[in-house]
């Protein structure tokens, strides 16, 4: 199986889906001539032409709305945001239009559209460029929210998102673009709404997604040396949430940590904890512990930034806490 970067896996998914379906087009800032701010769309303009790889002005609300309008009459747009931070300017269109038009028209309006781009903190990009918004979008009925953690999932989930008949908020990890992994060639579609156990274990479940998956796996490696067996559940999709896979793991381990790159208050982790306590209360041997970014805007200073971020050490400490080993 070929080894690809996360970036090239996404590129492959876009290329294959655009070749497969003439109604699919890519629109956003710098997707064409510039080859993508993060080079996810490299080569697509040359392959598919300017009608299908469309550079826009820096007007997130406007081009998100243009994509939604095109989806209302049956096209299948992929709208790239240079980052999800900038998509805040488009949130009216995503929430008030994309998420609701099918419902408020009584089912008459189609909405097959993907909004995609990088989320989360990179390195020293400071407060306005280092944010996670999956909990905000996942709060909205009508949207689906997907966050792949590996190159294989990046390809398979993007292909699924483009084929999905509903609006999909697709969040890529800015720090994941360069990671490498084996990626199946051709028809590799990962279903939306299905979590995956990335590592099996017996003592503690770590629920994670996106960037925290790699951290959780590293923590699990370290803890294995201390004879602590950790199961790592990668949600992959935030909405619809695969509660069954989480519960199955908790029923086995009886202890859980939720590791989330975003903020603590009303984060996705709070939802995960609620699903566990309401459906598997008697299975728990300890309260579930959440690991999140510090509850502050991201600072620029590298030491402060490091202190704000989720780390392998903080996840490992949380695992020990639910085992009462701290």
């Amino acid at each position, binding site marked *: 199986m070929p080894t690809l970067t996360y970036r090239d896996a996404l590129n492959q998914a876009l290329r294959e889906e655009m070749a497969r379906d003439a109604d699919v*087009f890519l629109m956003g800032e710098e997707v064409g001539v510039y080859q993508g701010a993060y080079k996810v769309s490299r080569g697509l303009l040359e392959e598919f032409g300017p*009608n299908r790889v469309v550079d*826009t*002005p820096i*007007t997130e*609300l*406007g*081009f*998100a*709305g*243009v*994509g*939604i*309008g*095109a*989806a*209302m*009459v*049956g*096209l299948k747009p992929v709208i790239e945001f240079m980052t999800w931070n900038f998509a805040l300017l488009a949130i*009216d*269109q995503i929430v*008030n*239009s994309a998420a609701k*038009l*099918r*419902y*408020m*028209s*009584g*089912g*008459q*309006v*189609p*909405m097959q559209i993907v909004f995609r781009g990088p989320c989360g903190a990179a390195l020293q990009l400071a407060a306005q460029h280092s944010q996670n918004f999956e909990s905000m979008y996942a709060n909205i*009925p*009508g949207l*689906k929210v997907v966050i792949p953690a590996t190159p294989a999932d990046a390809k398979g989930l993007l292909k699924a998102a483009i084929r999905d*008949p*509903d609006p999909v908020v697709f969040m890529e990890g800015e720090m994941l673009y360069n990671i490498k992994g084996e990626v199946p060639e051709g028809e590799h579609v990962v279903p939306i709404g299905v979590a995956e156990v990335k590592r099996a274990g017996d003592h503690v479940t770590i629920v994670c997604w996106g960037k925290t998956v790699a951290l959780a796996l590293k923590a699990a490696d370290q803890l294995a040396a201390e004879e602590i067996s950790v199961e790592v559940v990668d949600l992959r999709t935030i909405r619809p949430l695969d509660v069954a896979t989480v519960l199955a793991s908790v029923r086995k381990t009886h202890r859980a940590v939720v590791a989330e790159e975003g903020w603590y208050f009303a984060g996705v982790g709070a939802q995960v904890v609620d699903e566990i306590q309401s459906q598997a209360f008697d299975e728990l041997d300890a309260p579930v512990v959440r690991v999140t970014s510090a509850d502050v805007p991201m600072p620029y200073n590298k030491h402060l930034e490091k202190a704000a971020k989720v780390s392998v050490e903080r996840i490992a400490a949380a695992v020990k806490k639910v085992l009462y080993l701290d």
Partner: protein
Amino acid sequence: MATARAGRKADTKTAEKYRHYLRQMLLIRRFEEKAGEAYSLGKIGGFCHLYIGQEAVAVGTISQLRPDDYITATYREHGHALARGISARAVMAELFGKATGCSKGKGGSMHLFDASLGFLGGHGIVGGHIPLTTGMGFAIKYRNADQVAICYFGEAAINNGAFHEAANMAGIWKLPCIFICENNRYGMGTALDRATATWNISERASSYDMAREVVDGQDLGEVMAAMDRAVVRARRPASPTLLEIRTYRFVGHSMSDPIHGHYRTKEEVEAHRKRDPISLWDDKLRAENILDDATMEKMDAEVKAEVQDAYDFADQSPDPEPAELYTDVYAPRASE
């Protein structure tokens, strides 16, 4: 002789068409009066924005479209929906929140839809639907088709970023879009000159390399003529137009707003009422000898009956089934 007969025939056809437009305006007027009554009786809930006074805009512009063109509008869209041909029954039933409504009772007054007629919504966020219409124009061009996408909005929306972002893209990409600004002088209760630095709205088009016209929205003939020119520009090879159609709302912003009071005087409203689009068109048809008292009385009686029928239909229609609460949030799964 043959030419003369053909000429007379065409005149008859035109006369019929002109009377039909009068009937459409009258239908909207009577429908809105009935909706106001029904609101007062508690049959209609939520917000309800009536179109009385602006009828010539919807009827005149929609008269120039093809059935496969796309339309979006604001939350003051009962008139546009009726002019496009959604039945009075389906619109009234939607206002009543009934299962037989054009959006199955899930949209209400502000969210009327009929995709089969290309009527793609009543939208509730000021300016929010302008990019959507631009996207429909993009899709038309993407498919190399020759439809047009038109969008109605009030003059308050032209200060909104959504308008400028969308108009700019329509200008860059030469999309087949017609942006119809219904300038009724007030954004809710804020007068145009209190909200807009330059009052000549149509001039905004020049920022986006777009054709523009200022139109008397009380004169159906002028509205039709300007719309005809805009549609010609929008069909292949496409280019967009901003039509500023000046009109006036004879009623309050919504059912909770009195006709006059804080932001406009009784005298102002009465002065504008003298240019009622229905009376002006009625006068014109009579001057051309294609309308008489008997025809008008018959038409009015028919329209009243149609509106009463719509009211009765809506009143007697069932509410949506409780299970409808959870349908249409997402697309039905392939197995369903």
